[in-house]
């Protein structure tokens, strides 16, 4: 692990990504302390005389939205929703994908084939459209959005873990462990899962970028986090019709989404290089 950490530390873009993630997680955690206003507070001077939003100024650092609410405060509280959905949905995807992948890979045969066919089926579905349809029918709360994302997102990791487990299971050391009398749970926990952890870690990191983007897209389509609850995609959805006059309402939340997704992608990519030297420079 020491050498992996050294390799990771050398990658400056990944360290920058980690710094951005830390900052945004801190902002989300300390939202009530950091946000200058309540996210649903409609300031008296939050709209101009003709009722349009106020551009960024000394009082409202990032300007105000169509209802005269402080954009910075809404974005800080929105970070909470985006990150919670990102973590919960991605955590569930990783858990489902890893469990199914390990089980199918270890048992092999028909069970393995059945899992792969199931992933083929889910992958034939346009993920976003499926998520949209489910969210439109089930209604959209924070947890439903997270569940919907998890339902379409577990597939990739399941396939990767399946392939790896299949390869690992055929190694002699597994055979040796079995010959020495180790039972299935022991083989899984002691001999298989530790070798899978780096892959799981890499995919869990990259997966947060995917889930944050998916959540933003659902909210932008109006089936994600519902107003007045703030979310980055939702802010852009609400301001879309007015954005030529108030471009900051699209620009700032847009930058926030890109920064978070980019940071998790950079960190995940660098983790892959650091944890698996044979993959260096190949991805």
């Amino acid at each position: 692990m020491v050498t992996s950490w050294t390799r990771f530390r050398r990658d400056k873009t990944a360290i920058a990504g980690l710094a951005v993630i830390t900052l945004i997680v801190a902002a989300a955690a300390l939202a009530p302390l950091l946000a200058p206003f309540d996210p649903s507070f409609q300031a008296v001077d939050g709209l101009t005389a003709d009722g349009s939003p106020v551009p960024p100024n000394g009082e409202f650092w990032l300007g105000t939205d169509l209802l005269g609410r402080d954009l910075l405060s809404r974005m800080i509280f929105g970070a909470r929703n985006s990150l919670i959905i990102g973590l919960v949905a991605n955590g569930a995807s990783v858990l489902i994908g890893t469990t199914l992948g390990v089980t199918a890979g270890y048992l092999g045969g028909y069970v393995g084939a059945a899992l792969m066919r199931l992933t083929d089926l889910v992958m034939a579905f346009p993920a976003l459209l499926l998520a949209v349809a489910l969210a439109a029918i089930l209604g959209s709360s924070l947890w439903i959005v997270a569940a919907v994302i998890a339902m379409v997102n577990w597939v990739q990791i399941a396939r990767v873990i399946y392939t790896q487990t299949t390869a690992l299971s055929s190694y002699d050391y597994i055979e040796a462990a079995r010959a020495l009398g180790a039972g299935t749970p022991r083989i899984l926990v002691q001999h298989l899962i530790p070798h899978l952890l780096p892959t799981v870690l890499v995919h869990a990191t990259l997966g947060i970028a995917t889930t944050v983007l998916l959540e933003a897209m659902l909210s932008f389509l109006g089936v994600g986090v519902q107003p007045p609850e703030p979310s980055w995609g939702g802010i852009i959805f609400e301001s879309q019709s007015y954005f030529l006059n108030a471009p900051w309402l699209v620009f700032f939340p847009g930058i926030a989404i890109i920064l978070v997704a980019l940071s998790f992608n950079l960190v995940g990519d660098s983790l892959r290089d650091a944890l698996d030297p044979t993959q260096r420079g190949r991805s």
Partner: protein
Amino acid sequence: MIRYLAKRAAWSLLILIGVSAITFAINFVIPSDPVALIAARSATKADRDRLRHELWLDRPVIVQYGHYMAGVLQGDLGRSYKRKTQVGEQIMARLPATLVLMVAAIAFELLIGLPAGLFAARRRGSNADKTAMTLSFIGVSAPQFVTGLILFYIFAYWLSWLPSGGYGAANVILPAVTLGIAGGGWYSRMMRSSMVDVLRQDYIRTARAKGLDERSVLFVHAFRNAVLPIIAMIGLDVGIFMSGVVVVESVYGWPGIGQLMWQAIQDRDIPIIMGVTLTAAIFIVLGNLLADLIAPLIDPRIRLR
């Protein structure tokens, strides 16, 4: 070869049956009462019962599915709740626009991705390589609605170089570039790793050893082999593309199935949502089939299973 083709085609068909079962379930099984969604508020109980009978909702689920499938096979995807028009007809009317956008977007993807990947692979490990790969990650990490709105603001509104919406040759540029930026990010990464692999091969060393200049080594010997696996992947890209058009077509008012989908989402018009989803799934399955067929043609080492 024939056996392989038949196997892939049969599997594609099975996938489509599975997909249709899911769209059917989302259409008719999950909503607690589709009639409540469709019927006017003033409808009497008799009206509702007649509607229920017309929609086959008073029959067992398996019969309903049979009826739904019989319709789907004849191109009947049901009626829109909102507009009372045939979903199938609406989709067919809008499909050509989406296909035009798809071709233009793939062209831009490759136009951005291939040169960027080639450039990065040639200067592997340099700062230029790192910059190019970080840029590609920005392309991948930017949601298409953000890229779309920002490009719209700059090129259509601020500079007014390009039309802000509608259907036409100049109008396709902005939506295609928006889709191309995200896809180009992926293609540049794949192109880079494919090129790095090829440049390690012995025949490249031979080409250099016999004194060929670097340009013909790169473009004649390396590029042609590196680009083939990337071309084979275009078929796998359809799914990502189908999600992208919903956002991009609605931002630019491009009259394809994405815009239809966007409107249906706002109206919660489930038959249209499921019709577009099924159409998209058909294209995804066809794309995968195409990729399966092209792969062994390009690389004979791939075993035909």
